[in-house]
């Protein structure tokens, strides 16, 4: 035994690391305590993330509205300069117009939300494929608190689950750890919407007898005490009544495309 252990010291070290990590995870789950490391990491990461987010937004704009078009414009040598200039101008205006429209929508949403806290920009996404979270550019200093809701004009996006002084993390409704109380707009039936980790959610606890159909709109019911009631959450995209089970299987497509988000509004509890 001793010889075996002596010959596999390195392997033992790996096992020790794994064992310690599992003990640490047990401790975190039992105490609900997240080590201050998360705050430290955000202090280290938030600034470069903000910078990269700014730079990529600019580069994407240049790529979408200039380089891509420049390639096409080469087809016509004679008109190239003129077309370039006009298209560049047009795209710049389109970009401004798009931004204007987006901000206008957010502004009207802000005015309609009495519990408005802040408008935030997304500066990063989760580093692993296992979670669906976003990092936003405002935090505790701007009034954000844990369990506040993140919304867009199209509907609900998620909830703030971790707040640092200058940044915060939002758990998207598509994350498999997310659940919220919802109501079917047409039938007034209530259920729980859970994330799947994909770009689709699942409506749970809907009895076989409940009359649901594709296209039905889901609204937040507010019964979870986190999300304000009446916000659009998504539409039913698949209903399956099968087997002797008590409940039906219902897929829901979120109202907001959580992959293509630029800004969201944070609202508190009313």
């Amino acid at each position, binding site marked *: 035994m001793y010889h075996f252990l002596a010959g596999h010291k390195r392997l033992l070290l*790996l096992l020790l690391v794994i064992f310690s990590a599992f003990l640490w995870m047990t401790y975190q789950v039992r105490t609900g305590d997240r080590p201050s490391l998360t705050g430290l990491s955000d202090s280290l990461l938030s600034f470069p993330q903000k910078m990269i987010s700014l730079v990529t937004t600019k580069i994407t704009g240049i790529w979408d509205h200039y380089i891509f078009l420049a390639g096409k414009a080469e087809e016509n040598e004679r008109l190239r300069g003129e077309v370039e200039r006009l298209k560049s101008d047009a795209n710049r205006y389109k970009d401004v117009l798009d931004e204007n429209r987006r901000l206008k929508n957010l502004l009207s949403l802000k005015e309609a939300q009495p519990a408005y806290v802040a408008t935030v920009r997304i500066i990063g996404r989760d580093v692993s494929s296992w979670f669906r979270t976003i990092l936003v550019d405002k935090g505790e200093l701007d009034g954000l608190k844990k369990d506040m809701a993140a919304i867009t004009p199209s509907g609900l996006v998620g909830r703030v689950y971790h707040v640092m002084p200058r940044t915060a993390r939002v758990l998207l409704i598509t994350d498999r750890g997310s659940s919220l109380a919802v109501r079917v707009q047409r039938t007034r039936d209530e259920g729980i919407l859970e994330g799947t980790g994909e770009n689709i959610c699942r409506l749970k606890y809907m009895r076989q007898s409940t009359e649901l159909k594709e296209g039905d709109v889901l609204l937040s019911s507010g019964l979870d005490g986190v999300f304000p009631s009446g916000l659009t959450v998504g539409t039913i995209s698949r209903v399956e009544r099968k087997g002797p089970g008590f409940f039906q299987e219902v897929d829901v497509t979120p109202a907001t495309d959580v992959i293509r988000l630029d800004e969201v509004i944070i609202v508190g509890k009313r």
Partner: protein
Amino acid sequence: MRAVLFLIFIISVVVFQGTLFNILSVKGVRPDFPLILSCGIGVYKGEMKGLLFGGIIGLLMDASTGLLIGPNLTGKASAGFLSGYIRGKIFRMTPLVYLSFFFILSLIDGITNYLSISIFIVSSPFLGSLSDIILPQAVYNSLIGTVLLIMFERIKPVPERLGA
């Protein structure tokens, strides 16, 4: 100085993973560059450095997510260690070996993450996670990892078997 550069490098990789590399995302799955790097370090520098690099970068990834510290720490440290360990047992590295090498290590990382998340955060069906996250991620990582390692080999050849 080396430690500071090392820290800056690790932070940059984690920052890029959460920002720039999103453009490589296919249905929510991106190549896991921290994992690929941990494996690369294991291949070039041996299992202990692979373990150390994987452990540190995994810790930072977990801390940045803020949900639970441990899944990536365990997965990346294991992958970094095993890459050095396996490298020590293989006589000749070919592209096919690299492909299977990254594929298996990515599977190990994925299964470790799945177990940690299922035990400590929220349980989900294994087959669903396997087909939606673990396998696509392993295929993606093995392709990108192999290309990167072959390219890097031209600059710096992989050393002879370490610790064989």
